[in-house]
């Protein structure tokens, strides 16, 4: 019987060999994951959705897009605005900007950049038929006039200090058409040009040999999409990825340091994490209750144990990099005894002392990301110690964000990314910014703050604005419509051969144009 079975196995082997051959034939696809010589491979978490700068809003699209497109002005590594396509610029009056453009800039398709391209870029966003999410940002713009081939004038409806940020928008060739209608984004004039875009797999950029600042040191950059953080770390260990920025689990950094040649850098970032509060809630509308919540949170232990020091304790929305940052704004260090006192003073005394009954119950909403849930568990425990019982609710992003927008929450935690101009306070805390007209999700109303924020918008002198926003920060640090938690640091993990990369506070990758690898 055994011999007969062996014979059967022998014949079956032929069947399996044929099957295996089929697998091989089927799988034979050109090995697209091979690294072209001289290219840097950067690991990113998610697919950039839209590289056209007129439409891009997700972080990866914006950061990769900034390597493809130049803008009139650009923030540098110290968050200062510098000229890029603008050779020079000035304000003619309090609502008119005059730009003279560089004459040595060509798009990736060989066409020379002129003022017509800049005008086209902005007008295509303002076109009512355009689906650009950036149209709202250009609302203060009244006219754009092309004065000469390389000179143009922007005129605003009224003085609007934060509008200057809109000159960091990427410029596309006027030949691009009004809407992004095909799968490839329009040509830019940046240091890298788009070579391949494979949805869900990778984005390949090649060096622009005719770049006006000189050819980049890298032959190109491959942005490889690797959704899982552990796998990105393993890819780095194997040498298939040379560079990663953020999106890493905090506990992976010690492993990467001890198991690879990784050079790990941590730099102050601008992403601000906070606890949002519903000010219409009968308990949370008491200022002392909000202050008690701030005192009850032991940020330091969460930063050390859960976040492994990849964040730094925050005092408010603006990071120390920001020109309007006020370091004297009040902070609320961990002090549970004080938190209890504040709750007593607010009229919410503990019904049974150290017994099990809480002073009151609240819900805390967060996303279903594992780290966020673990942090929320720590908040729950810490708030329970001062007598606030928390019911944790975690949701997938769409449902969570919908609840936050509609004010369906007591407490929640979220982050603000890419903060530059302090006018963001208007969007978040002005009483006219309650959704759907802004992001005052906690329905905070303060007439003194409204006055300061309106004044900050129309004041063009930076030193005067600075004083205004210092007052804003002090007022908010006292009133606490948000409980500040921390600023996320930019975590950069790179192979030793990468030189010349400079970290930007907002996570921009633009310094790759000066980097070399090998």
């Amino acid at each position, binding site marked *: 019987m055994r011999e007969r079975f062996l*014979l059967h196995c022998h014949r079956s082997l032929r069947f399996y060999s044929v099957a295996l051959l089929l697998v091989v034939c089927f799988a034979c696809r050109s090995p697209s994951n091979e690294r072209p010589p001289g290219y840097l491979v950067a690991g990113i978490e998610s697919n950039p959705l839209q590289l056209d700068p007129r439409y891009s809003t997700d972080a990866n699209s914006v950061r990769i897009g900034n390597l493809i497109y130049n803008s009139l002005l650009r923030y540098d590594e110290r968050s200062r605005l510098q000229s890029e396509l603008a050779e020079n610029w000035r304000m003619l009056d309090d609502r008119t900007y005059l730009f003279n453009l560089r004459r040595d800039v060509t798009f990736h398709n060989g066409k020379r950049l002129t003022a017509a391209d800049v005008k086209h870029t902005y007008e295509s966003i303002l076109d009512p038929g355009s689906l650009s999410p950036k149209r709202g940002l250009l609302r203060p713009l009244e006219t754009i006039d092309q004065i000469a081939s390389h000179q143009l004038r922007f005129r605003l409806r009224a003085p609007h200090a934060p509008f200057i940020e809109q000159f960091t928008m990427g410029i596309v060739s006027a030949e691009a058409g009004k809407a992004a209608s095909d799968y490839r984004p329009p040509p830019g004039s940046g240091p890298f040009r788009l070579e391949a875009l494979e949805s869900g797999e990778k984005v390949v950029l090649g060096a622009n040999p005719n770049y006006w600042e000189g050819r980049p040191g890298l032959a190109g950059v491959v942005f490889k999409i690797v959704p899982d953080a552990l796998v990105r770390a393993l890819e780095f260990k194997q040498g*298939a990825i040379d560079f990663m920025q953020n999106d890493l689990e905090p506990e992976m950094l010690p492993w990467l340091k001890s198991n690879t040649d990784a050079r790990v850098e941590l730099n102050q970032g601008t992403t601000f994490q906070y606890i949002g509060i519903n000010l219409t809630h009968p308990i949370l509308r008491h200022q002392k209750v909000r202050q008690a919540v701030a005192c009850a949170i032991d940020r330091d232990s969460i930063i050390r144990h859960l976040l492994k020091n990849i964040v730094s304790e925050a005092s408010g929305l603006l990071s120390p990099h920001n020109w309007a940052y006020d370091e004297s704004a009040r902070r609320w260090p961990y002090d549970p005894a004080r938190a209890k006192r504040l709750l007593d003073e607010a009229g919410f005394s503990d019904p049974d002392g150290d017994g099990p009954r809480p002073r009151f119950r609240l819900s805390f909403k967060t996303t279903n990301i594992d780290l966020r849930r673990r942090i929320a568990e720590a908040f729950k425990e810490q708030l329970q110690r001062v007598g606030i019982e928390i019911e944790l609710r975690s949701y997938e992003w769409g449902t969570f964000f919908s609840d936050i927008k509609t004010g369906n929450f007591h407490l929640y935690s979220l982050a603000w990314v890419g903060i530059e101009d302090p006018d963001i306070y208007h969007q978040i805390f002005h009483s006219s910014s309650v959704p759907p007209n802004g992001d005052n999700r906690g329905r905070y109303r303060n007439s003194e703050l409204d006055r300061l924020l309106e004044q900050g918008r129309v004041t063009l002198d930076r030193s005067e604005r600075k004083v205004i926003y210092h007052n804003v920060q002090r007022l908010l640090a006292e009133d606490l419509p948000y409980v500040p938690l921390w600023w996320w640091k930019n975590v950069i993990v790179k192979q030793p051969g990468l030189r010349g990369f400079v970290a930007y506070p907002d996570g921009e990758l633009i310094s790759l144009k000066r980097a070399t690898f090998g």
Partner: protein
Amino acid sequence: MKQFLLRRLLLLVPTLLGAVSLVFVLIHLIPGDPVEVMLGETATAADKEALRQSLGFDRPLATQYRSFLVNLAAGDLGRSLYEPASVVQIIRARLPATLQLALCAMIAATLISFPLATMAAIRPGGWIDRSALTFSLLGLSLPNFWLGPLLMIVFSIHLGWTPVSGRGGLTHLFLPAVTLGLGMAAILVRILRASLLQVIHQDYVQTARAKGLQESRVWLKHVLRNAMLSVITIMSLQFGGLLAGSLITETIFSWPGIGRLTVQAIQTRDYPLVQGCVLVIATSYVLVNFITDLLYKLVDPRISYGD
């Protein structure tokens, strides 16, 4: 048979219509507004309303459903709300990856399970049988999110035989196909072994041996073939599931398939893309079931479909 084929093909239409209609209603019922996600933080209520109007989301649900069906009948699945491409373009870019992984995982599962189950059934209770059952237990117990990284650490990091993740040549395919295939093989081993043990004692098998047929022929023609019906059912269910995309395996191995695309579309409330993905998944299931019915007839000619 012709009538059966025709009937099944006609049934395709209401089945797919039911699936996409159900998803159309469900995706509009769950909280979350695509316009909010698309326009981000800076848009005014007027901008949002304008976009809602231009996308047609301001119309009553019944009207939206009607125009969705009209477009569907014309083969137009619409455009993604985020990516600058049509739904058909996006799915067409992702579908080959899913098909490739599903087929290879299926073949890997077959290559592992058939020899193992057959050898186990030849000597029930022997060491091969016990090993096969242990393998099956392990295969069923180990989740892919654990097995995948484990295989990466062994084969990619320590041995350096395969890339860690991504799509490319055969070496890229090996680990995700094995990760998916092992779990499927674990089920198949159990089902096939049990079927073989049932069939092996049937009178017609003894008769075949008594006629002096070669043992390999007895196994191939009389035992394996008669044991295949239940296996085909399980395999078709598994294959249908694979065509719907395996979210965890696709995520771990950075595999650009339909599973990841569907979840991303749901998270961003990209209604047209969700509809398109569901249509593809439902069509795959229906087609696999249809082919399975044909295979039943091929394996067991006694099965009649009423003609």
